[in-house]
């Protein structure tokens, strides 16, 4: 294989190269050619595209792109060439044995590496996952606000809690996406160093590409006001259904179950397991496992989330992992629901 050409550009230390999380392979033949990533800090989408190879390494380019460009590219409406040419910067790096080397920052990609003018994401070369990403589309949705007792921190907390619930439902509903499945497995089942509910929700968020993310499109607070969002309507519907499950005494049932659940853990001397604890299911007795199984079933049933139970089973998540995830979810739901109870927030049914 012939040598790769020398590239002029600013050398970047490996530690200065941003952290990106893999989201999906968009073109894959005998390995990836084009992959969608998301930058950990800031959340920008990025495309990693193969450029060249020699006998020892492969060369890749990285370009960040706007949500609209990603959508248009996935729809076959714009070319990769135009995305690269519009980008403010391009990274190039080589990969030898699983290690990035020779990272360079360029203002533009050299002409000899530029894709052709008709470098579209043709259905004949795109992965099934690339096709699936564009099948779901966002629509507008409003969280309704009212009352005089709304503070700046409430306006920060409400979207954050909503986004965490959204990420959870996205994860459960997109197990066919490898990045989502891998992330769920690592945060709920194969976690190391203790379970962290923050990792669970942030982990899910990291594998949602911008075109599927809940994005605030406008904010109006004039009592009544609203938080306008673009999001996947199916996720919004699931959240509104779970919120509805807390109406008509549902929240009291859940609170009672939540308290008795923790009382049980204290009595059995297994409390403290839900955050940072490394307890494994094989340290529990069969009676404890059966009791926890019943608790999880009760919680999931009351929250009307049968799809969550199916996801747990599909992922082979043990009862302790199931319980950790469902309690972490409920704590956020309960916090959001206090705004609903006070009349500050209304989450319309879709």
């Amino acid at each position, binding site marked *: *294989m*012939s040598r790769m050409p020398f590239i002029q550009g600013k050398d970047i230390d490996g530690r200065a190269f941003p952290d990106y999380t*893999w989201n999906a*392979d968009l*073109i*894959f*033949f*005998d*390995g*990836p*050619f*084009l*992959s969608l990533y998301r930058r950990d800090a800031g959340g920008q989408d990025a495309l*990693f*595209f*193969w*450029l*060249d*190879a020699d*006998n*020892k*390494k*492969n060369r*890749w380019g990285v370009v960040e792109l706007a949500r609209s460009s990603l959508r248009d590219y996935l729809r076959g409406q714009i070319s*990769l060439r135009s995305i690269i040419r519009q980008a403010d910067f391009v990274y190039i790096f080589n*990969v*030898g*044995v*699983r*290690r*990035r080397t020779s990272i360079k920052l360029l203002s533009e990609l050299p002409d*000899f*590496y*530029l*894709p*052709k003018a*008709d*470098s*579209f994401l*043709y*259905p*004949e*070369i795109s992965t*099934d996952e690339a096709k699936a990403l564009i099948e779901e589309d966002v629509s507008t949705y409003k969280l309704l606000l009212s009352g005089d007792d709304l503070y700046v921190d409430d306006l920060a907390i409400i979207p954050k809690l909503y986004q965490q619930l959204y990420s959870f439902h996205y994860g459960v509903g997109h197990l066919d996406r*490898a*990045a989502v*499945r*891998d992330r769920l*497995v690592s945060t709920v089942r*194969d976690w190391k160093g203790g379970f962290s509910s923050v990792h669970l929700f942030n982990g899910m968020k990291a594998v949602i590409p911008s075109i599927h993310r809940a994005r605030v499109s406008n904010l109006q607070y004039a009592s009544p006001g609203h938080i306008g969002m673009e999001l996947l309507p199916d996720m919004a519907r699931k959240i509104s259904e779970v919120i509805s499950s807390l109406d008509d005494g549902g929240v009291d049932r859940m609170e009672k179950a939540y308290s008795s659940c923790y009382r049980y853990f204290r009595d059995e001397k297994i409390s403290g397991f839900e955050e940072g604890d490394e307890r494994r299911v094989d340290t529990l007795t069969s009676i404890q496992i059966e009791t926890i199984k019943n608790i999880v079933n009760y919680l999931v049933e009351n929250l009307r989330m049968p799809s969550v139970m199916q996801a747990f089973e*599909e*992922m*082979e998540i043990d009862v302790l992992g199931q319980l950790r995830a469902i309690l972490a979810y409920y704590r956020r739901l309960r916090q959001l629901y206090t705004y609903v109870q006070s009349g500050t927030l209304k989450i319309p049914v879709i």
Partner: protein
Amino acid sequence: MPQPKLKYEAEIADFAPGCISCPPAGALPMAIKAFRWVAKPMTTDSFLPPGKIKPARVNNTKGAANCGLFGVSMHTSRERSIDAFKKLEKTFVYARKTIGGFVAEGDLTEQDGLCTTSNSAGHFDLYEYEKVNLIDSFVVLCEIPK
């Protein structure tokens, strides 16, 4: 009759926990004519799955689990194979350096391995059984026009 062992069973078991089906659900032994992109002359390397090719064309240095790294890419017809390559080359102008620029044809048998269901573009992956040597079943048909 027990299913024969896959050639890369150990590697697949390494990254694929029980809940991840690899080869993908629906992959079956098939007697089918298959078309693969190769370099000329073909060598045994022409039929290595991406997880075994050195240097590996991977961009995820954390080594994400990917079942596709142990499947060998194929098309169901010569026309579809050439069409896909031409479209690929519009974006990756040096594609021939990594996957060759020729199409080879071969007759897969049910003893060769498990084939995934072909997609709308006629593409599928073959997960080879142990001791299968695909180079014996394939011949180079033509160079893919530039």
